[in-house]
């Protein structure tokens, strides 16, 4: 399927949004945490909506460190996948068609994650953005930061190392 040279902006937008939605739809765990993703061009922002089930300390109350770590990890993983998907879709061709049909490249595997808990998570929505530090053929390094009310006061950050999907 070849695309017309001057595609209407709505068609481009619709294709990108559909790909992102399909990507999010596959993971039960993303739904379990209730994570939502906003897209501005190729930039993604993740939201972890507050819910009583992600409380780790009911007395304070504060968010669960594990839920925060999970949120950071999946934001980083999604950023890496989305960057690959974006590049393939921009390139066009059979691989781009596959994505439009809901067949995505394999997910990168997390080798390790190091989470810094900078402040306790307040009982309200949390946001995160990830930045790819390096994306190589075999390995990738992604940094991710989460905040709540004030962008310049992150409450958690993480560095995640990935093993890129191998073709063999």
């Amino acid at each position: 399927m070849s695309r017309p040279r001057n595609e209407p902006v709505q068609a481009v937008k619709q294709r990108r949004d559909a790909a992102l939605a399909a990507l999010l739809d596959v993971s039960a765990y993303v739904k379990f945490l209730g994570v939502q993703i906003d897209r501005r061009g190729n930039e993604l922002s993740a939201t972890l909506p507050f819910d009583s089930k992600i409380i780790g300390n009911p007395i304070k109350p504060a968010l669960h460190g594990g839920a925060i770590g999970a949120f950071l990890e999946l934001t980083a993983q999604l950023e890496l996948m989305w960057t690959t998907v974006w590049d393939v879709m921009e390139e066009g061709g059979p691989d781009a068609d596959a994505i439009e049909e809901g067949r995505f490249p394999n997910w990168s595997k997390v080798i390790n994650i190091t989470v810094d808990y900078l402040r306790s998570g307040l009982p309200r929505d949390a946001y995160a953005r990830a930045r790819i530090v390096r994306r190589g053929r075999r390995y990738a390094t992604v940094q991710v930061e989460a905040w709540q009310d004030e962008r310049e006061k992150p409450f958690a950050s993480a560095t995640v190392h990935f093993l890129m999907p191998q073709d063999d």
Partner: protein
Amino acid sequence: MISSAIPHNVELGMEVVEVGDGMALMAVPYADKLVGDPHTGVVHGGVLTALLDACSGTAVMLHPKAQGGTATIDLRIDYMRPAKPGEKIFARATCFRITRNVAFVRGTAFDVSEEEPVAISTGTFTVEPRGTRFGDTK
């Protein structure tokens, strides 16, 4: 009190299997809602993060020298292999050193055999004064 009082632990179905001085063994049963990749049925890494974090914090509070609560300063998790679909996941954490302010904890997550870990963790935790409860920080 440890697990039933913590909503997110309840939500994950987390249970305390065994406790000792500065040691906790906890588990999360396999559940479809925790799956990260539907093609393989493998539980999402985030579940291991939650389990190892909770288990490590519990180990700190079970240390004889711990007086009050604790909060995670940092936690590193190395994923050794995917967890087996359908299997309950266990985590054993040991607080091997505690000072006035900082506790050091190692953890291992496994499914079928403790000798073949799914993930290992290293974390540092705060040591809060007597009278505080878990997670209390100023």
